[in-house]
Structures are given as structure tokens and as C-alpha cells.
């Protein structure tokens, strides 16, 4: 393929691709092949489809896509033109599907979604509750096109915004459009993107840099991975537009976590394809504008998600943050003015150029425009990726999209924003989500990870879990974070071990507030959030742990005692078999747990089929 030399040539190519596609009228089988579906066996499924198509010499297009969203029920397969959304399709099922659905056009109910409330079978995903109310801007192509073909991307409008920008817009006009759209950084803090670009543009200097932050370190978030894996061209397009708008940027970097190997593979391929077509590199689309992108692989450090730390990492140094100001738009990578944007922010850019700033600004709440991608995980029935307008309530996300709580247990809290965020309890479920509302609740938008917790999760344990993570990942540069979180973890450890003391809660609060006020970087500032927010909403649980030496959720094994409810006991003996210290004593027609022997490992509690082993105050 020759390099495209103008915006017109790109348009001609797109029209030709669409026409070819229409004329071919080929049925399409789209197999989700993102990391999560691959874990469920998607590669075997795709391979089986390929084999069937080849053996039978069928004229069918097999497309391996990025995430189709509903990760819990993979491998997912979309079949066109029948408009069917099949779930849990293993390689074993493929011959049957080829025969019945693809050849004879019949639906197979067992692969389709059945609404658990009504029993109704829903053939197409847009009619399912999980997808029905979603709105796609960032995930517009994810799971709908081949993750490895630039032609697929061009066919659905990829690089259209870039052509528009390079052929008919000045840098100022681009910045003005982004400013009017009120797009805010999707990486966490929500800084207005247009303002950031403008202030970097106004800096003196012939050399500036652009960085795309794909270091999605928050445990519980996987949207950046999905976008990088499933629609890398939209990220690249956004980066080129950003570089053009800011000016004097000829080199950009995409920083990707070491834990995301497939994202790196797909990105590398996408970069080389874009370069081949003249959409990246020297003289892009004959406009005279040149820009290159290099992938930088992370090596496992959460703190590198912080902008100044990431710049140090790209420079090949220890990824430690530095004091700001000066901000990185003034002094960034190698001391040059640098713009750093999140994957989702950059992906939104092309959509805004294509559909207009007013369209984008009409979506969302007063101060937070557009959509946000959330990764629903934890104890929700439906787990996966969703994209919804800002202002959607937490209740809608948990119950309408997430389908409610697994095993119909009782909802307890939802953790938003990872280690920088906080836990939000039931009474705030009706809060519309935007940047400000979450911050006022003591949580944070963060990268949009959303972990649902039920009554069996202990909030003290969750706080301890996050602090343990933060303590391990603290870069150690500033004492508030390094020493402060260490002490907080020490206190939490003794609380969950049943050695909590009077005044521990107040001590945690005081250290936490001190860290917030004095830590050097944004991650340090927000490090105490998981503890402070759980104390704020679940103080009674902390008190039970400290005063009563009892864990209401039965998670903290060192606390409380186990008792078998004799009336409900089935006398199956599983608890006796599983006990390693022989604390379960069998007598005539009854079992009981000897509290002096019991080590409170919780194995009997977990194994009991009738759930009649209770954890009680000692």
C-alpha cells in the first residue's frame, strides 16, 4: 500500500473500503480476543471458526476484536448479519454454530442472554440491560472492529478527524474546539484538557513532548488496557491531533504497563501500519506536519502513573515524582514543556473533532462533560466494561448495568478510584457520578475502576489491603508517604489481628490527614483515602474490631469465635474433615467447635454447605 499523500486520498480509500465491504456482502463472525476472553479460551474458539471456514471454503469474514465489554461471560462472539450476540462460546461449540446459525440462520438460545427476571431471551446485545443504556465515545470502536487492522479502523472513520484537522484547522482552532467541549482529563484529577494544551503551547521552546499515559496501575481498572488492545488507532489519532494543536512536538511516547503484553503487541502493529500509510511519521497526509510515537514499556511501579514520575521513567531513571510547580507543561520530559494525557482523554479527542464541541458539551453534568468508562468488578453479577454519560448514578451502575449483587447478597459499598479513591456506602448510591461529587464523598474518579462489595467484605480488611498496596508501592522519596503509610499499616495490621487499642481510629485519622497535607505527589496526597473514607462511613466496623475483638463480616480470621448452629447442622462432617487441628469434635448427633483448640482459620466456615457455622463475638 502506498503512503497517503492528502486528506482526499484517505477519503477515497475509506469510500473504496466501505464499497468493497458492501459489495462483498460477507457474513461476519466477530470473536472477542482481548486478554479476558483469551483467558476464557477465545483463541481456541477463533481458531475453530477459522478452521471451519477454511475446511468448508466459506466466504465469511472472521474478525478478532478487542473487548466487547461483558468480560464475565466470555468468550464472546458477535454474528452478523443475523445480529446475534453469543456468550461462552468454546471451540467445542463452533461446529454447531457454523451449521445452525451461520449456514441456516437459526438462533441457538443457550448462547444468548436470558434475562434472569423475565426469562426472556435477548438475541442482540444492545437490548440487554448491560448494554442498553450505554453511550459510546471512548469505546466507540472497541469490540466492533478488528484490533489488528488499520483498514477496519479507517472504514469506521478512523483518522477522519486527523485529516480534517491537518487540512482545514489551525492549531488554535483545535485547542478552541477542545476547550469548548469542556473535555477533562480522564486519568483521575480531571484537569481541563484544552487548557493544558494551551498553556503548553504558550511555553517558549522549539522542542516539546507529548506523553500518553497507559500505565493503568489502579488495581480494579482495565479500560485503558481494553482501548489499547482493541482500538489502538483511535489513541494514535488523538495523539497526533494533540501534538499538532500544541505545536513544536515531533516526538510522542506511549507509556504502557509491563503487565499488559497484548496491548504492547497490538500498539506496535498499529504504529507500523499507520506509518506505512503515511498517517504517522514524516509529512503526515502531505500536510508538512511530522510526528513520531515510541512505546515505552513500564517495569512494574504503581507510582509511575503520576505524571512527573512517568517522565523520570521515560528518561530511564528511577520513576520517582518530583515537587510541582514547575508543572510539567513548563518543565517536563528532559526539562522541556510536556503534555501528558490519559488514554481515554486522547481517544475522546477525535470524536469531539468529528462531532463537534457542542455535541460533547451537551452530554454529562454541569462541570463534567462527556462519558466515562467504568470497569465493574468485584461482587456484581455482570462484570465488565461500560461507558456511560457523566451524571449516571452509582445505583444505576451497580444495579442496572452490574445486575445487582452476586448470590443476591446485601450491598455494602462500592470502591471507586482504586488506591487513591474511597468506599461509598449505600446511602450515597443515588449520587450522580462526576469529578466533584466523588471527591466530596471522599472518593475519586481515578481511572474509573469500580469494585462492588457485599456484606461478606470487611471494610477494615479492605482498608488494610489498599494501604498494604500503597506501602509497597511508595517510592520512598517523601517521609509523609514512606513513614506515614507504614505506621498506618502497622496500626491496621494490629486491628485486624485483634490487638487494636483505644484511640487507634483517631490516630489513623490524624496521621491520614497529616499525609494528605504534606505528601509530595498526588498519589501520596490521596494515599490515606481508602482508610479515611472507610472510617468515615464504617466507623462501627472499626469499633467492633477494636473494642469487641470481632469482625462483623467474618473476614478477619484472628477475631471472633466459630460456632456451629446445631439446629441447622446437616451432620455432614465436612467441617470435621477440613479442620487441621481437630477442633471440630463429633459427639452423638452433634458437632461442636472447641474454642480452645480452634485456630480460627475459617476453613470450616467456608466449607459448610448449609452455612450454619457462625462467627460470633468471643
Amino acid at each position, binding site marked *: 500500500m502506498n503512503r497517503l499523500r492528502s486528506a482526499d486520498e484517505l477519503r477515497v480509500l475509506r469510500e473504496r473500503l466501505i464499497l468493497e465491504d458492501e459489495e462483498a456482502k460477507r457474513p461476519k463472525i466477530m470473536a472477542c480476543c482481548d486478554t479476558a476472553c483469551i*483467558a476464557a479460551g477465545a483463541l481456541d474458539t477463533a481458531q475453530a471458526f477459522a478452521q471451519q471456514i477454511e475446511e468448508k471454503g466459506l466466504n465469511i469474514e472472521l474478525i478478532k476484536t478487542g473487548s466487547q465489554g461483558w*468480560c464475565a461471560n466470555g468468550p464472546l462472539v458477535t454474528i452478523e448479519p443475523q445480529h446475534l450476540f453469543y456468550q461462552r462460546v468454546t471451540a467445542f461449540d463452533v461446529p454447531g454454530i457454523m451449521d445452525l446459525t451461520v449456514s441456516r440462520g437459526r438462533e441457538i438460545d443457550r448462547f444468548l442472554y436470558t434475562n434472569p427476571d423475565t426469562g426472556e431471551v435477548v438475541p442482540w446485545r444492545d437490548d440487554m440491560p448491560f448494554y442498553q443504556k450505554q453511550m459510546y465515545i471512548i469505546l466507540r470502536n472497541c469490540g466492533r472492529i478488528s484490533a489488528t487492522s488499520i483498514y477496519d479502523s479507517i472504514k469506521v472513520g478512523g483518522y477522519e478527524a486527523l485529516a480534517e484537522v491537518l487540512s482545514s484547522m489551525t492549531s488554535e482552532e483545535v485547542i478552541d474546539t477542545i476547550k469548548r467541549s469542556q473535555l477533562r482529563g480522564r486519568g483521575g484529577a480531571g484537569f481541563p484538557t484544552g487548557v493544558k494544551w494551551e498553556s503548553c503551547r504558550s511555553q517558549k521552546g522549539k522542542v516539546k513532548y507529548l506523553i500518553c499515559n497507559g500505565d493503568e496501575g489502579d*488495581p480494579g481498572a482495565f479500560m485503558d488496557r481494553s482501548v489499547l488492545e482493541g482500538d489502538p488507532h483511535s489513541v494514535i489519532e488523538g495523539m497526533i491531533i494533540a501534538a499538532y494543536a500544541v505545536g513544536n512536538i515531533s516526538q510522542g511516547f506511549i507509556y504502557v504497563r509491563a503487565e499488559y503484553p497484548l496491548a504492547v503487541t497490538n500498539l506496535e502493529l498499529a504504529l507500523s501500519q499507520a506509518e506505512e500509510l503515511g498517517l504517522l511519521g514524516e509529512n503526515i497526509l502531505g500536510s508538512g506536519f511530522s510526528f513520531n510515537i515510541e512505546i515505552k514499556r513500564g517495569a512494574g511501579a504503581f507510582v509511575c502513573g503520576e505524571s512527573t514520575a512517568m517522565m523520570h521513567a521515560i528518561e530511564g531513571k528511577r520513576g520517582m515524582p518530583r515537587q510541582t510547580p514547575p508543572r510539567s507543561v513548563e518543565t517536563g520530559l528532559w526539562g522541556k514543556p510536556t503534555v501528558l494525557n490519559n488514554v481515554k482523554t486522547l481517544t475522546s479527542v477525535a470524536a469531539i473533532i468529528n462531532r463537534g464541541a457542542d455535541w460533547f458539551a451537551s452530554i454529562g453534568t454541569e462541570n463534567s462533560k462527556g462519558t466515562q468508562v467504568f470497569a465493574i468488578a468485584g461482587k456484581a453479577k455482570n462484570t465488565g466494561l461500560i461507558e456511560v454519560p457523566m451524571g449516571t448514578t452509582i445505583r444505576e451502575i451497580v444495579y442496572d448495568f452490574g445486575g445487582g449483587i452476586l448470590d443476591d447478597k446485601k450491598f455494602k459499598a462500592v*470502591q471507586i478510584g482504586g488506591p487513591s479513591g474511597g468506599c461509598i456506602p449505600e446511602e450515597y448510591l443515588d449520587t450522580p457520578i462526576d469529578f466533584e461529587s466523588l471527591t466530596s464523598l471522599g472518593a475519586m474518579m481515578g481511572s474509573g*475502576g469500580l469494585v462492588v462489595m457485599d456484606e461478606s467484605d470487611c471494610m477494615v480488611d479492605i482498608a488494610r489491603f489498599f494501604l498494604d498496596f500503597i506501602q509497597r508501592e511508595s517510592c520512598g522519596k517523601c517521609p509523609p508517604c514512606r513513614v506515614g503509610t507504614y505506621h498506618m499499616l502497622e496500626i491496621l495490621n494490629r486491628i485486624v489481628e485483634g490487638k487494636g487499642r483505644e484511640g487507634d481510629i483517631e490516630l489513623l485519622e490524624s496521621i491520614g490527614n497529616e499525609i494528605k497535607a504534606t505528601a509530595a505527589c498526588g498519589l501520596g496526597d490521596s494515599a490515606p483515602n481508602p482508610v479515611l473514607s472507610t472510617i468515615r462511613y464504617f466507623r462501627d466496623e472499626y469499633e467492633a474490631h477494636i473494642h469487641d475483638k470481632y469482625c462483623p463480616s467474618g473476614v478477619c480470621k484472628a477475631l471472633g469465635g466459630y460456632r456451629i448452629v446445631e439446629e441447622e447442622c446437616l451432620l455432614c462432617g465436612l467441617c470435621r474433615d477440613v479442620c487441621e487441628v481437630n477442633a471440630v469434635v463429633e459427639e452423638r448427633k452433634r458437632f461442636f467447635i472447641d474454642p480452645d483448640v480452634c485456630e480460627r482459620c475459617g476453613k470450616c466456615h467456608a466449607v459448610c454447605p448449609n452455612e450454619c457455622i457462625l462467627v460470633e463475638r468471643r
Partner: protein
Amino acid sequence: MTEIETIEKEEKIDSERVREIVAKYRHREGVLVDALHDIQREFGYLPGDALRIAAEELNFTFAHVYGVASFYSQFYFTPRGKNVVRVCVGTACHVRGAPAVLDQFEEELGVKAEETTEDLKFTLETVSCVGCCGLAPVAVVNDQVFKKKDQPKVIARLKGEQS
């Protein structure tokens, strides 16, 4: 053996190979992490001598190279097992039972987290989220993600290979 002792130990490594690997990074800025990635891909870990050669070739002090390498959790200074089992202990996996998954792997493989079996067959470690939260709890075995349901099969298969 402490980390420092490990990298100070003399080891026989192919020093020419190290020079070859880092050659393309000479006289370039910001390449140390990339060079370390490449060295680790070749040797499976970062041998002390390889770090010394890299420092020499790229014009860094050894202390700087060690400082950078030790900052990142995915650089290793000791040889690693043929099979690397990484149990995800991210938030979503944690609430869906990652601690029990880790216990089970520890028991099956006979090593604690972040340890390698003596025969260098297995390394067991934890990882904070691999972005497969929808399938939690997961474990990554040799870069392939497995759901909880499939984990016993994987352990059995790996153990079968072991004997």
C-alpha cells in the same frame, strides 16, 4: 542471600552477548530501562555482571544502573523458575478470594510468594492487577491468564511436567 550479595556474586555469563544487546542503546538518551528489559529477556533475570557491563557500555555508574533496576518490581536479580505463576492480588481478585488462591498455589508448589523452587521449575509471585477483573480471581501462568475454575487443571499439568 540479600539482593546486594546476589548481584556482587561472580557469575559466568556471556559478556559478549550483553555487549551486543546494549550496543544499539549507546549514545542515546533515556534507554536504560529498555536495555534492562532486553537483558532480562535474554537471561531471564538481571545477572550482576550483565549490569556491570551495561553500566560500562552505556556510560553510567554501576550504582545508577542498580538503583534504576531495583526500583522496578519486574526486574529480578536472581534466576527465575521455568514456569512463572503470578497470582493476581488486585482489589477485585481480593474480594473474590485471591488470598485462598495464593494459599493453594503456595501449598501445591511448596514455596511462598516471591520465591522460586530449588529445582528452578517454578517461581510463585503476586501481581497487583492484570486487568482481568471481570474474571476474578485470576492467576497468570507463563503470561497466560487463567480463571479460578481452570487453575487446578493448570497446576496438575505443570506438576505432571515436573515429574
